[in-house]
């Protein structure tokens, strides 16, 4: 403990590494059979904001004989201290080193966290590659949207969970426990993998790769009866989403052609208003939070949204608890909703038309019309909002310069809408326009499309920038470099394992953080492995080409 105290005195935000928050689960390690390290390959503030992580933590700790602890990626300063002082990565609950745990489970939501995953294994003192690990090492498993194309990291992971994780994880841990001869010994890995490989939603590279089996995803059918954590950890430091969240439904009715979630999380499954109201009240009561976020891919589509908001507000308003509604779509935005959100607190409004012209929006299947967008903005401005964020993508298939220029037109029309409908011109308006580079994702209709080059993206950015005439419109564009690597990893094959490892050895960490990301490190890694990043990122795939992720059925 004293060594940890010593290093905590030397790092920024030490509360990231201490645990001890309200509602964390402490068990007697001599009384549990299976110990799981739930690893999130990003900092505490991001990991603790992840609902999936909270669900798995709750589900596993509900099992009496299982103790699940949290582990996050240490920031560079902490990594340096851990390495310098030879302290292996530890679980936040017990401070025990995770290399002695039975199972290391990664929650992988974005490809740019792969180097952090390797770094965590390395900091834990666990060999990176599955064929270098034996029965003395923990079993290393992974779940989350990255399982939709597990190829690039299948050298490192013993078992992937594909689809919803909360039911299968319980089955897996039970199976693991059944195979344990002794509480203090680990289960026979080969046997465990063999037995688990026949379960629905499980991909075991060492077994399935030999047989070309297709893997179907796991689906939790009834969300009303599924576990939902209402007694969750309340961080003692501010995190990215510092609020209670409710998950209204999974899946999405819309099928925007670029959207992986839209095409992989079906069918749509909702929770009932009654369940959600009860969960909301419980979660707020048990946490002391003053905000509930209503989460789902497209919250405005929830059929009983007004009723749910009414129910919750009745309880929340007198207690000074506010509601926040992320991911509203312009097409289902209405006054009632607006007023309900407004009752307690006013946040900035965000819309994502994704493409500037109606032609391109139709082509990508984004069913927002300009009329709907302007109506929604009009409503917002009339009701006193003075800040709108608009998100677009550049480089969508078939995009022309006219489509790019149309983005500027949309922004100017939003500005005009404000001029016509605001009741307070003096306060001004802030229209923030953001663009990111289109990334073709597996399992979407665009999975074979090309990504435009970094150079071409920047050309379109300056085209757009020059078309923006007003100071009230701020244009932020995301650097294309990260999207370029993300595109390569998203559509990667088994060859990329070596590249990821080379990038990590070259110093890549926290690649999703623009201030940490280095394109050069990745280009070097590709070169070292004699691979061309453009074969993965920008190349269009032929219609008859077998895609490396096609064995995963969504």
């Amino acid at each position: 403990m004293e060594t940890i105290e010593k290093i905590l005195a030397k790092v920024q935000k030490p509360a990231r590494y201490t645990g001890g928050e309200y509602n964390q689960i402490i068990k007697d390690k001599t009384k549990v059979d299976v110990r799981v390290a739930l690893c999130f390959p990003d900092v505490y503030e991001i990991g603790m904001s992840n609902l999936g992580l909270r669900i798995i933590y709750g589900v596993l700790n509900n099992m009496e004989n299982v103790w699940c602890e949290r582990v996050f990626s240490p920031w560079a300063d902490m990594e340096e201290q851990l390495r310098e002082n030879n302290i292996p990565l530890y679980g936040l609950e017990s401070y025990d080193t995770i290399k002695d745990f039975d199972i290391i489970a990664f929650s992988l939501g974005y490809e740019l966290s792969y180097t952090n995953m390797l770094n965590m294994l390395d900091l834990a003192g666990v060999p990176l590659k599955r064929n270098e690990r034996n029965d003395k090492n923990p079993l290393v498993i992974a779940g989350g949207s990255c399982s939709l194309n597990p190829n690039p990291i299948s050298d490192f992971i013993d078992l992937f969970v594909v689809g919803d994780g909360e039911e299968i994880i319980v089955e897996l841990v039970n199976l693991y426990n059944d195979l344990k001869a002794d509480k203090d010994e680990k289960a026979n890995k080969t046997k465990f993998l063999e037995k688990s490989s026949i379960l629905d939603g499980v991909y075991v590279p060492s077994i399935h790769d030999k047989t070309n089996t297709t893997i179907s995803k796991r689906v939790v059918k009834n969300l009303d009866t599924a576990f939902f954590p209402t007694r969750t950890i309340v961080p003692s430091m501010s995190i990215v989403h510092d609020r209670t969240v409710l998950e209204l439904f999974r899946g999405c009715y819309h099928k925007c052609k670029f959207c992986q979630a839209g095409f992989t999380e079906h069918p749509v499954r909702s929770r009932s208003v009654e369940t959600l109201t009860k969960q909301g009240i419980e979660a707020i009561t048990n946490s002391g939070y003053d905000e509930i976020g209503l989460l789902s891919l497209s919250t405005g589509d929830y059929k009983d949204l007004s009723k749910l908001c009414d129910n919750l507000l009745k309880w929340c308003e007198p207690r000074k608890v506010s509601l926040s509604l992320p991911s509203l779509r312009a097409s289902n935005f209405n006054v009632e909703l607006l007023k309900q959100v407004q009752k307690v607190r006013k946040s900035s409004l965000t819309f994502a038309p994704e493409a500037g012209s109606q032609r391109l929006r139709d082509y990508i299947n984004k069913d927002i019309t300009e009329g709907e967008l302007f109506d929604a903005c009009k409503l917002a401005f009339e009701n006193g909002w003075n800040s709108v964020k608009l998100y677009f993508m550049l480089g969508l298939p078939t995009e022309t310069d006219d489509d790019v220029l149309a983005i500027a037109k949309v922004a100017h029309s939003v500005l005009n809408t404000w001029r016509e409908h605001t009741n307070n011109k003096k306060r001004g308006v802030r229209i923030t326009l953001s663009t990111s580079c289109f990334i073709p994702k597996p399992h979407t209709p665009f999975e074979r499309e090309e990504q435009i080059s970094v150079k071409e993206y920047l050309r379109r950015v300056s085209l757009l920038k020059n078309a923006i005439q007003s100071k009230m419109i701020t244009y932020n564009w995301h650097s294309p470099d990260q999207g370029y690597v993300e595109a390569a990893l998203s559509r990667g094959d088994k060859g990329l394992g070596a590249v990821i490892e080379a990038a990590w050895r070259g110093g890549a960490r926290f690649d999703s953080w623009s201030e940490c990301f280095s394109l050069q490190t990745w280009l070097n890694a590709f070169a070292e492995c004699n691979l061309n990043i453009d074969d993965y990122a920008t190349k269009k795939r032929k219609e008859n080409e077998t895609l490396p992720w096609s064995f995963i059925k969504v």
Partner: protein
Amino acid sequence: MYRIRCLYSKKDKAAYISHLDFMSTIQRSLIRAGVKLIYTKGFNPHPYISIALPLSVGVESECELLDVEITGNSLPKNINNFMPDGVEIHRTYISARKLSNIQWVDVFIEFIYDFRDDEKAKYSKKLLKLFSADSLIIDKKSKSGIKSTDIAPFIKDVNFSCEENIIMTAKLSAQNPTIGYNDIIQVFNQNNDIQTPDLIKMKRIAIYDKDMILFK
């Protein structure tokens, strides 16, 4: 409406919660314990909670005070069930004394060196001399920037002992100016002939007014 004063400790893991984060942490703790807080009026209402002396990250305390305005006249008996690890409310009462009357903090500081024991004893004497000198000038951070300041008048009753680690007890000025953890570190940073400890652990023990009477 009542203004309740709470005496609490903030130790172990809780010592790493920053002052700002602790404000929201304590607010949430009180709310989930069922305490009805009084809120400010206006666009963005927030509860009336004030913490007497901000505590640096990593410093422990057994004598923190905060005032909170609530509708009832007492906090629930089981209030400590709702706190994160390391935070414990010891006493709650109603007090008319202003928090600005606090003047001195009794501290316990541990200097951890990887020395042999006889070396430690020698070092302990060296440190005693340093901290009880008539003048101790450091670059001190204040609102108006960094200023060369003699902090000796604001450190009293210095004592050193040497057990497993070198231990200093003293009374430090609590406000105007505040002498805190960072100033102690600064003393080492600015004295080249004194080895900086591997770790300095500090704990607040008690607080006093200007007449050295225990502040309540």
